[in-house]
């Protein structure tokens, strides 16, 4: 109890420090009055402009000292009022802008995280499956892989053939070849060497692929995916249109979300693979196998849950990276979310908007990581003490 109170106190202190830093930086390095009024701000001769300056100073509390302004802002912020935007009319208020933009970005980032996990968990499990089963791990682990991947392939192939793509044919040929190699290894012992080579190639390919995704900067990945799947293949729409229907908009978000998801998926896959390999050496796995539990059940039901720690930790940390990625991806794909809002606001020096978004993002990040901490004990009872 005392420990969690202490943690909450640290979180609050942290957020206050972040807001103070941002607030001071923007007020000292920038010129708020000029950002509000434009060139009139420097005109102290004309009585009309002086009246405008005084009105603006009163409206935005610019005549008050910095600490007082900060306290006023903080008081308003805590009550959900994020202030008035800089600019001639100040419309819409910051809260309204955030309410309009935030859901889109949340959907985008949520989609990205779900996609990342949906890719990483099967990928991680299949790349760690080889280490289950001890000495005779050779063709047997492939037996697990084949029916598992055949089902996936049937779905993928069906989806791809809908688009009349040659990729589908290539994928199908690859898996048929894999199945044949596997059958040969079962009947002709000499073909096991071949299967081992195939397995080595596949695991090499898998680790090279995950390394590639990790090393691909998100803006470059965005350009690549856009070029291949939107421009060349024409599977996805070129622009996001906020006036479209719900399902059309979700489809438009698919490619941006995939851009954000792939590097995360690669990181999760690597972590999951390492943790799974460690877990699979534990006694309770051996016990389950000895009782005759099938490999798939052992992997999905027994080993997966205690192997999720690193993934869950990085899931929280990755949320921060996603915000950075969302800036770039939203700008590139033309999605009006908070990423584009903050870029626009920074370029126009619209400080209240920037401050609000920085605070929302920092709060979200800190709270998410707090929740991740709580999740550990749900995942593994051993941590609860």
């Amino acid at each position, binding site marked *: 109890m005392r420990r969690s109170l202490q943690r909450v106190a640290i979180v609050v202190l*942290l957020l206050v420090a*972040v807001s103070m830093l941002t607030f001071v930086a923007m007020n000292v390095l920038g010129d708020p009055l000029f950002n509000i009024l434009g060139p009139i701000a420097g005109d102290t001769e004309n009585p009309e402009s002086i009246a405008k300056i005084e009105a603006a100073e009163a409206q935005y509390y610019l005549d008050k000292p910095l600490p007082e302004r900060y306290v006023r802002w903080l008081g308003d912020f805590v009550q959900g009022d994020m202030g008035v935007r800089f600019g001639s009319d100040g419309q819409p208020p910051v809260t309204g802008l955030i309410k309009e933009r935030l859901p889109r970005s949340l959907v985008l980032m949520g989609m990205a995280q779900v996609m990342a996990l949906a890719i990483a968990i099967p990928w991680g499990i299949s790349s760690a499956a080889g280490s289950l089963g001890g000495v005779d791990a050779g063709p047997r682990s492939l037996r697990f892989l084949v029916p598992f991947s055949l089902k996936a392939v049937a779905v993928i192939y069906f989806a791809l053939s809908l688009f009349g793509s040659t990729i589908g044919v290539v994928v199908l040929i690859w898996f048929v070849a894999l199945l044949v190699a596997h059958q040969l290894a079962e009947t002709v012992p000499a073909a096991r060497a071949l299967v081992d080579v195939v397995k080595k190639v596949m695991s090499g390919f898998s680790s090279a692929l995950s390394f590639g995704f990790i*090393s691909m900067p998100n803006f470059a990945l965005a350009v690549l995916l856009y070029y291949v799947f939107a421009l060349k293949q024409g599977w996805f729409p070129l622009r996001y249109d906020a006036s479209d229907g719900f399902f059309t908009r979700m489809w438009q978000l698919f490619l941006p979300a995939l851009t954000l998801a792939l590097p995360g998926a690669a990181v999760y896959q690597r972590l999951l693979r390492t943790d799974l390999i*460690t877990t699979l050496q534990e006694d309770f796995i051996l016990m389950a196998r000895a009782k005759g539990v099938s490999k798939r059940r052992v992997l999905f039901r027994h080993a997966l849950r205690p192997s999720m720690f*690193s993934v869950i930790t990085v899931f929280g940390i990755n949320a921060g990276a996603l915000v950075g990625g969302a800036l*770039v991806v939203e700008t590139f794909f033309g999605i009006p979310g908070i990423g584009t809002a903050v870029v626009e606001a920074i370029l126009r020096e619209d400080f209240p908007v920037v401050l609000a978004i*920085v605070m929302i993002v920092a709060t979200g990040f800190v709270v998410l990581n707090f929740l991740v901490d709580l999740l550990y004990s749900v995942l593994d009872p051993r941590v609860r003490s």
Partner: protein
Amino acid sequence: MSQDVSTGGVIEAIEPEGAQAGVVKKTLGLGFWLAVGWIVLIALLALLAPVLPLKDPNANFIDIQGKGRPPYGPSGDHWLGSDQDARDMLSRTIYGARVSLVVGFSAVAFGFAIGGTIGLVSGFVRGMFDKITSFIMLVLLSFPALILAILITSLMERSLLTIALTLGILSVAPVGRLARSASLVFSEREFVLAARTMGAKPSHIMLRELLPNVLIPMSALALLGTAVAIVAEGGLAFLGLSVEKGSTWGKLILTGAQTRQLEEAPWIAFVPITALFLTVMALNFAGDRLRDYFDVRELAL
């Protein structure tokens, strides 16, 4: 946050005993040297660009002999094609490397000089100084890095120096955190105790005993950090917020990434993307191998 502490414990808890027993001899491997070779090659090309027989990156090579309007595809004249203003992509990419690499390396150097020093000292002296610096690092880490970067770059004029400095500030906290944890570990070791017993001054212990040991795990971080800084500069450039003068990889990609450019002349975007990708991958790979080689666990997060 305290997630570091809890995972640290968890990872230790599920680590099987004697996991290292099977490892007999570790080598860096061929891939590591290939990666280092690529980094050296790019660095040399960037460094020697004015001396090399390259085409002027800013000259327009409009071809009157009937190839029509630019952009031109790859040919004997322009090995990697030309952009929409008929400028040579090969030399533009090599010149672009100059800014990208300088920003990457100097940002990391800054992060190491400031963050490394703070981390080393706070891990050694602990107490109040450690508490305060750790909190400052936490504040820095809870900013989304790219937002902080565009905040700083938008408030200052965008010269090579400010961009490198901004990314340098961003790398202070991660570098400092690792330096602190490494310094904490090594401060407990016998040789530090021995030096203390012999009456060595704290400054001597930090410079002569701790620094060489802390630098080993940090060398991997230097490579990984350079990759991150190069990508961050590219991200800034992609948002139109990088160095105003001169070309960088990010700016080249941005010009090539317009829908019309991509349709007509995809190489304008994909030549710098390939260069950037290979460089980042080489840095990541070399850093990864070094990390495995020195067996530094906490770097993984």
